[in-house]
């Protein structure tokens, strides 16, 4: 890989699909520091982001760990260029397993023989596989019920006892327990790390020196925006959750608490190790060919986030 | 108009109409028509184009839902209409059109016989749009005759027929009347036809029946008979044709 340019050439335009950071940059005022032109796209989620990449309609997106893996298995060369995680990941997981009312399931080991909602290709689906793996189970030991994880399909499926177990995230965790707790609905912690969050970009963008330089600058701002959100939860709730996303103050507070604090490490060796395990697991379970994790990380960007944070403080 | 539903006429009247009025928007078409037709009586109705003959027939048949008007009407329930247009269902074959609503194989048989009587044997499975204008009209006639109604309302049923076929259809109609004695109200533009078929001839003009003429000629009626010719001249004059030396078609 060619070394990154130190300055973004004039006339560079970057299309960025990272709506949360977009809002953080706007509220914090950090956005004014961008030295190149940005076109914001309100695109999130792996399949959509990858589709936009394929169409050359997007230069960089913000997702969890899975999309870059599947993209590389399916002829879309992409690489992660930034990574952040939660301060205390086990205590602040993104997902918890919702248990249908009346199903006697207390630990991962009780999953044997149960019906589990499964969305292949999405983070929740991978989490199910990893949880089974952690409990020493194979996917054949349970019934995987394929359901899209969108909307309230999972809570509804649990409540109507169509499945015994389903990974829940965000406000759905709390809502599920408040609504169906009285009927006997419970939650099970998986004790796994489900917190990785990446920026990733197609190889052809990374090969463009001008765009790569712009990405480098963006990674720095992205890290600072992350830090800004950590420090200004009240403003963030007001501007983002309530103001933009239309949630109640209460929901906003809950989500901020649930997310905990996000940190940008300056070293990727840990995450790469875990990532490799995931790749191997998925390759094994879904019949793909495993590959080396280095193929999907662009090491030129490894230090940039943490460095920008250090510099700004 | 006050309704008189209680005053039922004796059953020998097939049609009993009092003070019938019908209007389209501002145009009054029928304006107080009174008429009685005896059972088995053959009445012909003449009138200019647009004088309201079809409107009157539709009122008798009870088809003028939603047309403004007043009056009392009494008709047998078993009536049959030959419309001015042949009105064959385009999606049913000829025989299906004739036997529409009839049940069983006896209906089929009767339909086939009626078709043969109007000269269309062998055309049973043709579609209506494969028939000539006169053929369509004859199918419509067959459809009405096969039902043997107590009252036959026929709106120019022979308009599209040539002289020979028309004579045959006259004979057919006479025969049917002799057999079942239905009351008949026949709308026609042909004065000779009216005179040679009807017991009584009405002329409709400006919303009223301006003529009600009993025909007392012997049957079969001779067109050359002087009283026939006189009746013709009288009726034509009532229709506005006053050309001595020039006989209307």
């Amino acid at each position, binding site marked *: 890989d060619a070394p990154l340019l130190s300055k973004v050439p004039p006339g560079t335009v970057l299309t960025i699909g990272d709506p949360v950071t977009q809002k953080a940059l706007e509220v914090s005022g950090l956005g004014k520091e961008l030295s190149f032109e940005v076109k914001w796209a309100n695109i999130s989620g792996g399949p959509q982001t990858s589709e936009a990449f394929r169409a050359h309609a*997007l230069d960089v997106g913000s997702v969890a760990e899975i999309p870059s893996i599947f993209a590389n298995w399916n002829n879309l060369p992409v690489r992660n260029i930034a990574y952040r995680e939660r301060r205390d990941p086990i205590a602040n997981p993104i997902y918890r397993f919702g248990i249908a009312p009346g199903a006697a399931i207390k630990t991962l080991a009780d999953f044997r023989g149960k019906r589990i909602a499964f969305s292949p290709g999405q983070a929740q689906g991978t989490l199910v596989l990893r949880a089974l793996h952690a409990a020493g189970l194979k996917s054949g030991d349970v019934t995987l019920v394929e359901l899209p994880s969108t909307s309230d399909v999972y809570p509804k499926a649990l409540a109507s006892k169509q499945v015994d177990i389903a990974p829940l995230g965000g406000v759905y965790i709390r809502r599920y327990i408040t609504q169906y707790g009285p009927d006997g609905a419970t939650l099970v912690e998986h004790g796994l790390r489900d917190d990785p969050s990446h920026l990733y970009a197609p190889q052809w963008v990374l090969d463009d020196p001008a765009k790569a330089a712009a990405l480098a600058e963006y990674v720095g701002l992205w890290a600072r925006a992350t830090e800004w959100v950590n420090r200004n939860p009240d403003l963030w709730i007001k501007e983002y959750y309530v103001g933009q*996303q239309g949630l109640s103050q209460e929901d906003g507070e809950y989500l901020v608490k649930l997310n905990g604090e996000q940190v940008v490490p300056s070293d990727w060796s840990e995450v790469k190790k875990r990532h490799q395990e995931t790749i191997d697991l998925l390759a094994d379970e879904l019949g793909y060919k495993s590959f080396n994790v280095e193929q999907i990380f662009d090491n030129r960007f490894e230090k940039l986030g943490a460095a920008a944070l250090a510099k700004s403080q | *108009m006050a309704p008189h539903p209680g005053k*039922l006429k004796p059953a020998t009247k097939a049609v009993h109409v009092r003070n019938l009025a019908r209007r389209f928007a501002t145009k009054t078409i029928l304006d107080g028509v009174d008429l009685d037709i005896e059972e088995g009586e053959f009445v012909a109705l003449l009138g200019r184009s647009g004088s309201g003959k079809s409107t009157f027939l539709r009122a008798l048949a009870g088809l003028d839902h939603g047309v403004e008007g007043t009056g009392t*009407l009494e008709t*047998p329930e*078993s009536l049959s209409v030959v419309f001015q247009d042949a009105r064959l269902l385009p999606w049913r074959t000829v025989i299906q059109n004739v036997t529409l609503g009839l049940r069983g194989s006896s209906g089929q048989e009767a339909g086939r016989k009626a078709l043969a009587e109007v000269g269309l044997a062998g055309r049973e499975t043709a579609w209506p749009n494969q028939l000539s204008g006169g053929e369509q009209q004859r199918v419509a006639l067959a459809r009405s005759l096969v039902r043997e109604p107590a009252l036959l309302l026929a709106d120019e049923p022979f308009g599209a027929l040539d002289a020979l076929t028309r004579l045959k259809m006259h004979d057919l109609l006479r025969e049917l009347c002799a057999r079942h004695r239905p009351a008949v109200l026949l709308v026609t533009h042909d004065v000779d036809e009216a005179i040679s078929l009807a017991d009584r001839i009405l002329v409709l003009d400006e919303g009223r029946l301006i003529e009600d003429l009993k025909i007392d000629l012997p049957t079969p009626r001779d067109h050359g008979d002087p009283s026939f010719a006189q009746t013709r001249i009288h009726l034509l004059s009532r229709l506005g044709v006053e050309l001595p030396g020039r006989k209307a078609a």
Partner: protein
Amino acid sequence: MATTWDADEAKLSRSSGGRIVRAGSRLVKPAGSAGPRARRRLGPGPAIPFGLQIGPALLVLTWVVGSALGWIDPRILSAPWTVAEAFVRLIEQGRLQDNFVTSATRALLGLSIGLLIGTILAVIAGLSRIGEALIDGPVQIKRAIPTLALIPLLILWFGIGESMKVTTIALAVIVPIYIHTHNALRSIDSRYVELAETLRMSQKDFVLQVVLPGALPGFLLGLRFAVTLCWVSLVVVEQINATSGLGYMIDLARNYGQTDVILVGLVVYVLLGLVSDGLVRLLERRVLSWRRTLAN
């Protein structure tokens, strides 16, 4: 043993001898009022005032009563008043209006473009075999592909901006407009075509006086599908890079499980659908006033 069939101002009775008696006066009001009925009427009879609103009203009633009496679990279907509150809240915040305006712009733009293209394609394919050979197949192909599965391709060709959204809606609208208009056109009675041929009409007159008015009933039925389609398509297109719009609002609410907001969205959809369809039906009644059908 006379049976009275109709007590409306006049009498229709059946006497014992199988006779029908009708008497009395009737004044026909402009439309749809029932006069004395002559014989058993086989059609549906005159329209019930606001008849089409009865079904939806009953549904709403069921919802209200069911929720009030606790038959409907509010976790499954929010109560009407919860939805009403959300409605008011969204309007106070200005969100509903904003989203509506964005969506309406997209939907109506897509609808207009689709209408125009669909009609033109239908006329070309209807009047020329070569046009049909080139146009009909691709339209059928478009129709056979689920919009969801088409989105990736549309993104490829039109990017992720407004043009992709409007194009998707227009493409959705083209299908019913084309198919209905083409079908109606091809179904025009050949007798009228013959007439036009003997009148030595120009192709333009033929299209404007015979073909289009003759195909109008079919076109209007297509329009009824098109007007709801343009709203329904929003849910799909506004998943892609939208920051406002009704579809986006519902999507966002689904992410956060805001069932009341979702229901507000659906209620708005239903209202839009019913109103659009109602408008087309009104138009239908006006421009097809020459027809005498089972309906009137």
